């Protein structure tokens, strides 16, 4: 293992333990911010020390031990502010459990459901997960979501205060709430994956700030919900997209569209892992949005072995996706698939059927329209649409690609 890979592995363990401890303390105190405060220094120390010293045998016990200064501080304040007492007592209990038992209890599922609770501001859900479950700092999250660190910090503080003051419960929801609440968790994780990324469906961009973190959350969710097919579907979708990262741009940084990517550059282990999760999902026999999106990516991945793309199959999957989750991304994907099966006019008609107020500023819609117009040899209109798409992207590589197509 290379040094950076070792570092990443250690970081993953540290994050894992940090999330478990925050979840354990917060689930019993109802106070996410308090739990984080108690552990913040310890986590920093772990990231400094573990890569050199190795991962301790009982990471949670190590972290709680390292947090003791902060906890004693908190104890002093507790004499003034009575409410901190439960957290302190809990930290003591937690250290005992961490030292005595081989596996520290995992309450992260409850924490995930709290972060994605409908009572929490939708713009705070994903940042909250990244910070509390993975221990990411607010500045890093802010830059991925293109807001100022101060604004992100404020958003997170407000959400944590609401959890504590409004009494958002740390529990795993039951039917009939289950389906809806799981979707909130899945969407929040996917939104971490697509943060700062305009078109996740066809990988229409190269900027991709929190991909590793999103995949880590996806893996955590799968381990906590092994029987939830959509959790497997979401992870498979992210892994398929991740597998293509090295092929998404040339060595000069130029954008390469999915159907032109050199399949030899795709990361086969990630594709294999994605396919494994897709198989697990389909064996659970409950179809959902993320499984369909992953299945579409799976067919693209087959180009590496089959050489061709099975567009009729992709069109069929998009048909299902549009019915299940009629997002504009799915509608655009369906239109492109229709055109690729040979019916360019039907593809264009499907694009035109998207409401103008939804498509007006949606870059992938304009890029797809341009692509379809060119197929139909309506070159002047195609050039215009490519230029319009270029004006709507934030990604320099994609902009250059679209402008180049506009000039052709």
């Amino acid at each position, binding site marked *: 293992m290379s040094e950076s890979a070792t570092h990443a592995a250690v970081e993953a363990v540290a994050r894992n333990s940090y999330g478990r401890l925050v979840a354990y303390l917060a689930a019993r105190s109802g106070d996410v911010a308090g739990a984080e405060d108690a552990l913040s220094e310890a986590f920093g120390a772990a990231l400094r020390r573990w890569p050199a010293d190795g991962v301790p045998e009982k990471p949670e016990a190590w972290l709680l031990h390292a947090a003791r200064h902060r906890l004693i501080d908190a104890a002093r304040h507790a004499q003034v502010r*009575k409410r901190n007492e439960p957290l302190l007592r809990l930290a003591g209990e937690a250290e005992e459990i961490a030292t005595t038992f081989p596996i520290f209890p995992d309450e992260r599922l409850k924490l995930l459901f709290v972060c994605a609770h409908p009572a929490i501001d939708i713009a705070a859900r994903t940042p909250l997960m990244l910070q509390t479950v993975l221990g990411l700092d607010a500045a890093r999250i802010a830059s991925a979501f293109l807001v100022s660190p101060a604004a992100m910090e404020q958003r997170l503080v407000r959400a944590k205060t609401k959890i504590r*003051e*409004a*009494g*958002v419960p740390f529990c795993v929801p039951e039917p009939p709430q289950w389906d809806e609440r799981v979707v909130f968790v899945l969407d929040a994780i996917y939104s971490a994956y697509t943060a700062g990324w305009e078109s996740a469906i066809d990988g229409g961009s190269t900027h991709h700030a929190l991909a590793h973190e999103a995949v880590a959350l996806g893996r955590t969710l799968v381990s906590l919900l092994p029987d939830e097919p959509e959790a497997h579907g979401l992870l498979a979708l992210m892994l398929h997209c991740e597998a293509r990262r090295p092929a998404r741009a040339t060595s000069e940084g130029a954008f390469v569209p999915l159907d032109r990517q050199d399949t030899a550059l795709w990361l086969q282990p990630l594709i294999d892992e994605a396919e494994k999760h897709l198989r697990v999902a389909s064996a659970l026999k409950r179809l959902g949005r993320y499984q369909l999106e992953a299945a579409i990516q799976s067919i693209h991945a087959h180009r590496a072995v089959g050489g061709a793309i099975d567009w009729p199959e992709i069109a069929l999957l998009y048909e299902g996706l549009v019915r299940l989750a009629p997002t504009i991304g799915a509608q655009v994907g369906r239109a492109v698939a229709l055109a690729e099966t040979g019916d360019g006019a039907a593809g264009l008609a499907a694009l035109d059927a998207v409401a103008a107020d939804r498509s007006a500023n949606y870059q992938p819609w304009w890029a797809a329209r341009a692509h379809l117009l060119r197929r139909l040899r309506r070159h002047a209109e195609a050039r215009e649409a490519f230029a319009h798409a270029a004006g709507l992207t934030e990604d320099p590589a994609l902009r250059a690609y679209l402008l180049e197509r506009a000039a052709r």
Partner: protein
Amino acid sequence: MKYILLVHVPKDSLAAPTDPAAVAAGRAYGEALRAAGIFVAGVGLGSPDNATIVSVRDGKRQVQDGPYAESKEFLGGFVVIDVPDLDAALEWAARNPSAALGSIEVLPLGGSYFAASTGR
């Protein structure tokens, strides 16, 4: 933990219901709240057209014709309940018959003081 459910309804549905079905729905909800042992307090409010606003500025009392603010929805009443957590409060808010006409704002009462006494 105590929560107040503020019932916001459109102005035209503010008058006390006369429709027997609506009256029965309101009564059934009240009985369910009591039967669950979570009811603390609750009232329906009169028309905002009859409101009067009082404030004190520089030691002088100012009295104005209400309502407080012109809006499409008005506070039609409230219920205070004592339940374990927000999810339970949201459950009871959704059961309020007025949730189908307007919306219910769910607020923890007394904030931190009550949060500390839940023993969660």
